[in-house]
């Protein structure tokens, strides 16, 4: 599994360094890390996507994060109901002749063209990692010039929304 952790930390200088130093010291690998401000100016949220690891290793990661004095809360979102999004900017070759194809390609992804040049367009897409991977591989044959991804950011779903979802799902089950 590739765990997703949401970590609330004090918004103070050096906190990011503490976290990355911890990961280096313990040999934990991360796939992506985003840091952003939250509704409270004293608190930042880090969203960590870890590399493949087993449960025991994940438990150790979470405990080590907890040990940091500046870490306020660690939530494992891997299996929890969550909304998670990543944003990618993809600069892809696009001679005028092909531009229509590209537009129709990206349309189902609800991606948009945010910059247009003579030979390229820049596509912006948001979604989960899978969706972004899918669009990237569709665009790859046209020649991707440059690619920038933000890494995942995530929030757990509100409890009431989760139970509502569950109720909806359950009501769709046909009793036999």
């Amino acid at each position, binding site marked *: 599994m590739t765990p997703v952790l949401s970590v609330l*930390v*004090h918004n103070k200088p*050096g906190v990011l*360094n*503490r976290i990355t*130093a*911890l990961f*280096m*010291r313990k040999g934990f690998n991360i796939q992506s890390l985003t840091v952003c401000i939250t509704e409270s100016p004293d608190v930042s949220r880090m969203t960590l996507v870890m590399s493949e690891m087993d449960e*025991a290793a994940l*438990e*150790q990661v979470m*405990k*080590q994060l*907890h*040990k*940091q*004095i*500046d*870490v*306020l809360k660690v939530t494992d979102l891997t299996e929890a109901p969550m909304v998670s999004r990543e944003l990618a900017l993809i600069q892809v070759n696009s001679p005028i002749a092909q531009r229509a194809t590209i537009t129709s390609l990206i349309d189902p992804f609800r991606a948009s063209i945010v910059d247009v040049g003579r030979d390229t367009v820049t596509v912006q897409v948001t979604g989960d990692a899978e969706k972004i991977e899918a669009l990237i591989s569709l665009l790859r044959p046209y020649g991707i010039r440059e690619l920038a991804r933000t890494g995942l950011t995530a929030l757990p779903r509100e409890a009431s929304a989760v139970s509502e979802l569950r109720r909806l799902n359950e009501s769709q089950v046909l009793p036999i």
Partner: protein
Amino acid sequence: MPGMSKPADEMKRPTGEANHRTDGAMLLKGADMVVEALRRERVDVIFGYPGGAVLPLYDALYECGIRHVLTRHEQGAIHAAEGYARVTGRPGVVIATSGPGATNLVTGLADAMMDSIPIVAITGQVAKTVIGTDAFQETSIIGISTPITKHNYQIRHASEIPKVFKEAFHIANSGRKGPVLIDIPKDVAGETALFSYDDPPQLPGYQPTVVPHQLQIRKLMSGLSRAKKPVILAGAGILHAGASAELVAFAERHRLPVVHTLLGLGGFPASHPLFLGMGGMHGSAAANKALHETDFLINLGARFDDRLTGKLEFFAPHATVAHVDIDPAEIGKNVSTQIPVVGDVREALLMMLAADVESPHADAWMNELLATKEQFPYWYVQEGTGIKPQRLIAEIARLTAGNAVVITDVGQHQMWTAQFFPFEVPDRWVTSGGLGTMGFGLPAAIGAYFGKPEQQVVAILGDAGFQMTQQELAVIGEMELPIKVVIVNNGALGMVRQWQELFHGERYSASLLEWQPDFIKLAEAYRIPATRVQEDDALTDVLTAFLAAPGPGFLECVVEPRENVFPMVAPGTGIHQMVGVKP
């Protein structure tokens, strides 16, 4: 004025003019705030070394009433602070200047981090205005020390000083103890701000669990009552928590065998009939047999270090493991644990003692272990006219009636001390375990002396390790500290030599000290009375006189150069595969 009342034993006010206010706060300069904070924390001794960036701080310390011990190297200062902390249970305080002063603390910080020793290290830093410009003696000690401290701070304004010091002392000495570093830019020391020390520390991200979960205790106790082969593994957590009496009571109540880790020694009396000895690489056969064959292992404040466990697949392979630790991250880290108990080990033992459960039926197991203990004691062969290092240790133990505070360095002599010095009471044993820091012993002995000046202090050091921090003899000489320094001179980096003999085909690569300084002249140069002994016949008399003499003393004891530490669990093998259990 609340917060201003001071106990009578405190001496002078800060040298800066205190501007008293009615709310209990006062206006102070940064440097004076540091001194005032140390006073509020009841710090009675500081180990340190001055330099440019801490000049304002040293000015405030001058005649402030808190004793300052000038070691001859910052590494010496921090190891001294560690020795002090280890025997008192109170944070050791060390001060160093920026740049090289700060980097000289690195080994001690790492050592304290590994062995959970409470330290508050104060470093000077270049002025805020030049941070980041590669100013003279600038180094990012925050960056360097982050992985080897429990926490660290760089102060940005004098107004932060009270809060930061309060938090630092609290963090260092609570939960799983450890070193905290405070970096203070030089200009901060000159800033003026309000000093108030009354607010409790506000640390929402740091709330160690002290009282364990009752449910887990119940699980532990019901598992224990069903066990056939129970054993207690007691680590230094027992000492940090002050839980010796509770440990003894619990082991006696249920007649449980007790194994200590290296750092736990003294938590359970060595002479107790339920004590099996130290476990691990150079532990006793009985202790390791118990750890291998047990069906119910209760770990009380130990961290399953690899030198203890040996190859993990052979460590307690048939056991249900219960682990009591104040640091949840230690539970399940190395050994999979069925009954985790997060909390202070003394609290846990009190709850375990209150539990009304049947004791396990383990008489057969106990008898088997005691027979093994009988059959395979630590051993050495007395032969020839030279001194066996093991006998040296046993004699020191006998002549001090086991009453001394004993400090070692790292190597063979350390293991022999762990084996042959029977530690009967807590907090008399100071050694570098997790980091295995050569050079630790001599300065740590100085700190231990300041922590327990009423006790006899004996430093047992290797001839090589001693030379790593030998300059600290100056402190002993200058202050005439009644510390007895014993050099176990085997003319070698003995532990390395042993491994080369056993695992590298006797190729003694860079491990023999064929050239040695004249240790006697060296000690005498520091005006410390020094003696050499090399004949076994003379040992008892020389030791008796040496230990009885007042003031400092230095004894070079030339021992058999080829003696090895046994028994041994060779690296990569299981604890049931000990070699050298018998002569």
